[in-house]
């Protein structure tokens, strides 16, 4: 998601490395954190540790358990295990003794080094922690060794650690737990040496997912939805049907009569909340609520009308974001010109666990329990709404039941809602704000809808000579705090990523962006701009290859193998060729037709990771297509946990397929038409293709895995359908044209 915020690191306070390496240990009481829950990986970091004995990232308990404080949210992408792997590697710990817990909100200690605030996104969790958590592990290791050396009266250099046990040639040995207390009192070393890659035993090999055992037994206190507090009320909020509408009047008499409903309150600017002793009465109470809305000033356009406006805009000139050579002239002089208009719908994230947040306000303090993806903004927001000091807001992060970008928004709307309800309610009582699936689907914060219009010209040899690209898409960033970093001269970087840096050899490339204002809140959605831009660029490549009569793999190779004179682009192209060649080999590529099936290929870079995919489709009797197989090759630099990278590719492919085949959010007079999984159609098991993934060996710095698997699958499927029908599917989802 907000990966381009990397740029913010220049503007925001930069992390100093000082604290964590010079962190002097706290004398009191060693390291008191045991396993609070019986099962490994559980993570309710209630009242986080005050001591940073082994850096702010590691605690070691007397029973030898090593708890890694994860500064990120793990919403399924596996970073809790990833960061624990980094620590275990340098600490020479055994997987069995590792635990993961979420760090408290503390921007100084736990900021994401990619953007200077504590938050998770842009597939940065491993990338920005790679050095930091290994150093933490090495620091803790040095301290344990020093403590053992002192106790045994031997030089530190003679002590070895393996599988979590310290030993000396004299026969002396001991566990981490035995030395934890003494080690915690030592000064942390100023410098540590990290292992070289050839010494790694876990990184790049395998390490068990720490959260998996809990997630196979329905362990309590795992997710935000699981939070139960004494005396807790459940709140459901009725939000307006049209974005921006206001409550004119409401009648709560029937709602209040529902057994279990405690009160119904007006939450100005947000809607009407029903408070109940538990969830079902809250839902029932809300059904009985009568509300009259004032839609003056609300967004009441239908999505069809918006598309019509967007298509018109796509015919007019807009702010330019790329202008290499004279594209108009190149296209005018081209032997062949291909042209296409693409349409993308709004998409909800539809993560399995709807939005949820529990808040308890006590005087000038507030405690929150939920999957926090953006601690710094969330904490500040809660403090502002409640009018309390920011340090009085405690955030307990739990695992997220998915997110795909949804659990973080620049306006922290869910925090504002919950804090507002708690403030209006006024009693010191925990309140759990639950979004029902309908609330979640209807709440907005969608991937923006968009229209792209592209013209490309080919010379007589079938080489691209010019590319003209116009994007019409609502800005994610304008009007938010991030605008200053992310929008330059009318160009929102997240709208154009993937086109601005399209790296094929095309001598003349011109691109423009329109950013119409629409009252529907939009948000980053797994891979942000890349599901649209990757689709358009890669589908256009096939349309051009088709017109040139060249095999699509060969066509890509040609346009990737000419030196561009720009070092970064040449490097991109070399790595793209690497994954393309690998996926061609894996799938046994021999052209777009394969027996009675058809294949499409696509390659895309996002979040510094390169992914190529081949999709194979078959045609059903009713004319729809079934995606049978997907092959995927990924180059994400050093893959800390290759099997987890595979899992993210598999999941990213399935998630992307759902969107391409079935999912759309439409509006009728500003009201969202889809409310639940019956109409906002997810992918089901029988629709999941067989997926084979290979992770390329690489010595490059680790880059993201959570998002980059998603963008290529759409165009790979589209290109397979182009091969089958001669027509490029350009309006999504494919169900609209009867193709899925």
């Amino acid at each position: 998601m907000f990966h381009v915020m990397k740029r913010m690191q220049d503007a925001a306070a930069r992390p100093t490395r000082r604290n964590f390496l010079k962190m002097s240990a706290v004398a009191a009481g060693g390291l008191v954190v045991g396993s609070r829950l019986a099962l490994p990986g559980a993570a309710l970091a209630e009242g986080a540790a005050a001591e940073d004995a082994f850096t702010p990232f590691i605690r070691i308990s007397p029973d030898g358990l090593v708890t890694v404080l994860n500064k990120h949210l793990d919403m399924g992408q596996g970073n809790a295990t990833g960061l624990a792997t980094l620590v275990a590697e340098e600490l020479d710990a055994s997987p069995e003794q590792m635990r993961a817990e979420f760090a408290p909100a503390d921007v100084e200690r736990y900021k994401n080094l990619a953007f200077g605030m504590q938050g998770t996104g842009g597939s940065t969790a491993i990338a920005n922690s790679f050095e930091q958590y290994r150093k933490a592990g090495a620091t803790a290791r040095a301290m344990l060794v020093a403590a053992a050396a002192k106790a045994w009266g031997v030089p530190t250099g003679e002590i070895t650690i393996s599988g979590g046990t310290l030993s000396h040639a004299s026969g002396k040995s001991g566990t981490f737990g035995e030395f934890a207390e003494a080690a915690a009192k030592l000064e942390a070393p100023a410098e540590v040496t990290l292992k070289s890659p050839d010494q790694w035993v876990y990184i790049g090999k395998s390490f068990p997912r720490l959260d998996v055992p809990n997630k196979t037994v329905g362990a309590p206190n795992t997710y935000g939805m699981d939070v139960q507090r004494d005396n807790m009320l459940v709140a459901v909020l009725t939000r307006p049907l049209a974005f921006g509408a206001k409550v004119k009047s409401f009648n709560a008499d029937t709602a209040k009569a529902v057994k279990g409903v405690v009160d119904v309150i007006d939450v100005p600017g947000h809607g009407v909340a029903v408070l109940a002793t538990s969830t079902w009465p809250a839902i029932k109470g809300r059904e009985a609520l009568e509300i009259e809305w004032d839609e003056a000033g609300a967004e009441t356009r239908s999505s069809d009308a918006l598309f019509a406006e967007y298509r018109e805009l796509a015919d007019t000139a807009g702010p330019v974001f790329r202008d290499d050579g004279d594209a108009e002239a190149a296209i005018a002089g081209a032997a062949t010109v291909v042209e296409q208009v693409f349409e993308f719908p709004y998409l909800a994230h539809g993560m399995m666990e709807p939005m949820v947040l529990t808040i308890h306000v006590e005087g000038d303090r507030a405690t929150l329990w939920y999957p926090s993806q953006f601690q710094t903004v969330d904490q500040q927001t809660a403090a502002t709404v409640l009018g309390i000091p920011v340090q009085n807001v405690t955030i307990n992060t739990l695992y997220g039941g998915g997110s795909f970008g949804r659990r973080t928004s620049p306006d922290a709307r869910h925090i504002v809602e919950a804090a507002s309800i708690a403030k209006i309610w006024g009693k010191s009582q925990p309140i759990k704000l639950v979004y029902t699936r309908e609330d979640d689907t209807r709440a907005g914060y969608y991937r923006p809808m968009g229209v792209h219009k592209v013209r490309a010209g080919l010379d007589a040899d079938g080489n691209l000579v010019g590319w003209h690209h116009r994007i019409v898409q609502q800005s994610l960033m304008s009007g938010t705090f991030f605008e200053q970093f992310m929008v330059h001269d009318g160009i929102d970087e997240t709208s154009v990523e993937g086109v601005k840096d399209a790296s094929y050899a095309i001598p003349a490339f011109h691109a423009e962006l329109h950013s119409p204002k629409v009252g529907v809140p939009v948000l980053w959605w797994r891979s942000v701009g890349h599901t649209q831009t990757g689709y358009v660029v890669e589908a256009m490549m096939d349309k051009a290859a088709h017109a040139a009569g060249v095999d699509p793999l060969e066509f890509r190779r040609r346009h990737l193998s000419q030196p561009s004179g720009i070092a970064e682009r040449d490097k991109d192209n070399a790595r793209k060729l690497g994954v393309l060649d690998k996926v061609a080999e894996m799938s046994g590529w021999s052209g777009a037709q394969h027996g009675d099936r058809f294949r499409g290929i696509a390659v895309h870079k996002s979040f510094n990771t390169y992914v190529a995919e081949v999709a194979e489709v078959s045609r059903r009797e009713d004319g729809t297509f079934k995606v049978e197989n997907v092959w995927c090759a990924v180059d994400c630099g050093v893959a800390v946990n290759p099997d987890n990278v595979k899992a993210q590719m598999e999941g990213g492919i399935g998630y992307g397929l759902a969107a391409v085949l079935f999912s759309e959010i439409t509006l009728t007079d500003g009201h969202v038409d889809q409310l639940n999984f019956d109409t906002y159609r997810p992918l089901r098991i029988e629709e999941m293709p067989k997926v084979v993934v290979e992770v390329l060996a690489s010595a490059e710095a680790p880059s993201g895995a959570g998002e980059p698997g998603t963008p290529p699958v759409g165009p790979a499927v589209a290109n397979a359908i182009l091969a089958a029908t001669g027509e490029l599917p350009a309006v999504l989802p494919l169900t609209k044209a009867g193709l899925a």
Partner: protein
Amino acid sequence: MIRLNINGEDREIDVDADTPLLWVLRDELGMTGTKYGCGIAACGACTVHLDGMAVRSCQTMASDAEGMAIVTIEGVDGKAASAVQAAWRELEVPQCGYCQSGQILAATALLAETPKPSDEDIDMAMSGNVCRCATYTRIRAAIHRAAETMEG
């Protein structure tokens, strides 16, 4: 007062008769392993066993479950269940994990009935269980794996 037998234990709960079993489990009994995903029988996150059958607890009124054996993720056991949970761990099926209680209950019911399921059997039995993380490839593999261990 509603009387339910849950994971072999008799419980008495004071709720309206129309309360879905899902909310009785989660809110009244604090058994939060059974998940809420959609509330309309469209996702399977709330799957439990009623007399061995996989059902959606969000669409089962608590009063309708009286007199039946209710089994949830917290209590599921037996040959099929242990094989399924072991396979889930071995193949590291869960990502976010939120759907997995339901997946495991559905897979267990399938294997209890059909010890060696084909891919089509799996599609049929598991189609109602959505996984937004799309762990389907591993779910399928883990069901086959569990079937193997049950044989052995």
